[in-house]
């Protein structure tokens, strides 16, 4: 795989993660338990949509076939998306959404941290900008993770259930393939082995604070990197793309 091809695929993956998670979070708008959380969630969702735009615009340049950001967001079928399985999982209750954020964003922050120092100046710039947003998201989600984990019997039970349910989607973060290898070796991208160690250490510390136990030895699910998604993604993509499909090129 050429370095250019790997970089394009890598940037598209970043864009897909950001867009799909942003879309999932958008589904929560008007459903948050408090007005202030409502604002926070909508802000965070828009942060992700904004990041997706930067990734897709860059991908369009790398690809050089005259596509734009909307092409990648609205004109590809769900099988073409390469986001992690965890970001397409349904929101569930408030705590479940928090667990998803903590698991994914702990990884994503480490990924962006490394990318902000990579040798591709454009990607490094996007990552440096994004990591500031994600650091704050993670602070917010982590506080909730501890508050609900170390909260009432019911909140603790629900958090433990969500952790057990979502844990299986975290193995994918560290299943590096040829794209990850080329980006690491050629462009100075993240070393997934050390990212995994840091991710575990951070999660472990947070779980202790939240009086939750991280699942041990649970089987992991993967496949999204080859286009094998859970049944949830198709519905999400269909809803997200509906307007653009019905009215091609529509703007508002």
């Amino acid at each position: 795989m050429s370095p250019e091809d790997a970089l394009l695929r890598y940037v598209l993956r970043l864009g897909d993660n950001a867009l799909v998670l942003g879309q999932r979070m958008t589904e929560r708008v008007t459903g948050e338990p408090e007005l202030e959380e409502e604002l926070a969630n909508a802000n965070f969702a828009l942060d992700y949509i904004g990041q997706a735009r930067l990734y897709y615009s860059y991908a369009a340049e790398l690809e050089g076939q005259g596509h734009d950001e909307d092409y990648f967001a609205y004109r590809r079928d769900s099988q073409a998306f390469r986001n992690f399985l965890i970001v397409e999982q349904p929101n569930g209750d408030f705590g479940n959404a928090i667990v998803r954020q903590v698991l994914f964003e702990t990884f994503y922050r480490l990924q962006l941290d490394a990318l902000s120092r990579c040798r591709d100046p454009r990607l490094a710039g996007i990552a440096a900008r994004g990591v500031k947003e994600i650091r704050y998201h993670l602070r917010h989600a982590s506080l909730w993770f501890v508050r609900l984990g170390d909260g009432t019997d019911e909140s603790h039970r629900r958090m433990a259930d969500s952790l057990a349910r979502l844990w299986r989607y975290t193995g994918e973060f560290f299943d590096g393939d040829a794209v990850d290898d080329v980006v690491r070796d050629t462009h100075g991208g993240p070393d997934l082995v050390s990212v995994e160690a840091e991710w575990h250490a951070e999660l472990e510390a947070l779980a202790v604070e939240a009086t939750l136990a991280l699942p041990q030895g649970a089987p992991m699910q993967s496949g999204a990197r080859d286009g094998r998604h859970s049944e949830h993604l198709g519905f999400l993509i269909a809803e997200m793309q509906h307007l653009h499909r019905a009215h091609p090129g529509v703007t508002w």
Partner: protein
Amino acid sequence: MVNGTEWPLYEVFIRSKAGLSHRHAGSVHAADDQMALDHARDTYTRRMEGVSIWVVRSDRIVASDPGENASFFEPAEDKIYRHPTFYEVPDGVENL
């Protein structure tokens, strides 16, 4: 929780830029101090309004009693000598 249904109220003060003082921006509900800071950030600094945030539980603010306004504030009304209005401003001084 204060009454079992609502989180406590916090008052939010924002410093809009270095050198200026914090000003009251509004209030948020939050379950604890950290959450209050987050909510203040998400509610009142979305459009680059601030470089520093203070939050304080509303019930910790000691406020003057409107019923005592007469004794609190009216005595100042006839003390015009407290205003620096008895100085001659020299010609040509612009920024006084």
